[in-house]
């Protein structure tokens, strides 16, 4: 228990720091890299929460595909690689206030609602079996699964159409 807690706290601090880095750094590529840290941290948290399959899917898809997409995007839009143009717009203060308020709001709500709940791992023998996840997807949630597939297809076609040079 103590080991999990410590792991959690360490990961939490790293993640938050990296997140702040994403939104505050002046270098776009650095921001992307900070994002990788955050995503990895999330994956680690998933493992802590005994969701192995989800964790590896996270790594594969997010870090493996999404971040690459971002890097391609950065390249194609020729974003400045150096600290020449500031990357923030002029509403940083109101944004900070709004985001801060949002954060406070959420934290208070969460603490108020779920104070004292514990995640109990004692009854589990290991991480959630992938078979269980698979069964859930293809039995209970097969319709959403299909819908999401169609959504992916649409997004794919949409992205191609939008990005075509003609």
């Amino acid at each position: 228990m103590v080991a999990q807690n410590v792991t959690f706290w360490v990961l939490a601090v790293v993640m938050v720091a990296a997140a702040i880095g994403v939104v505050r750094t002046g270098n776009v590529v650095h921001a992307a890299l900070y994002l990788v840290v955050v995503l990895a941290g999330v994956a680690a948290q998933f493992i802590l929460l005994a969701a192995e399959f989800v964790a590896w899917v996270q790594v594969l898809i997010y870090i493996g595909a999404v971040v690459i997409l971002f890097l391609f995007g950065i390249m194609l839009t020729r974003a400045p690689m150096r600290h020449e143009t500031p990357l923030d717009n002029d509403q940083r203060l109101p944004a900070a206030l709004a985001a801060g308020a949002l954060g406070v709001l959420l934290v208070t709500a969460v603490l108020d609602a779920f104070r004292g709940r514990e995640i109990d791992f004692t009854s589990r023998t290991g991480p959630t079996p992938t078979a269980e996840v698979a069964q859930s997807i293809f039995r209970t949630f097969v319709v959403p699964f299909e819908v999401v597939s169609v959504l992916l297809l649409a997004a794919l076609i949409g992205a191609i159409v939008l990005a075509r040079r003609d």
Partner: protein
Amino acid sequence: MPLTQFLVLAAILFAVGAYGVLARRNGVLVLMSIELMLNAVTLNLVAFSAQLDEVAGQVFALFVITIAAAEVGVGLAIVLLLYRNLRTPDLDAVDQLKG
């Protein structure tokens, strides 16, 4: 493990992502901030799934990840188009709706 620490962490990540969406000028960076927010959501889902011992939470987390990927694809396509038309990825330049 207390549930709240995960939830609070997710909340903080969400807030930071929100700040990024509002404060960043580059369209790609805005998309990255959106990813932050989505990740916060997935963390929430999985935490609840563990607490409730329900696999549905993880299934939803998978869906969220999929949708996030799709959204990034389309989003970047849009940013690309914007860049082609406006010669800059700067979202401040998109003010054609100005009244």
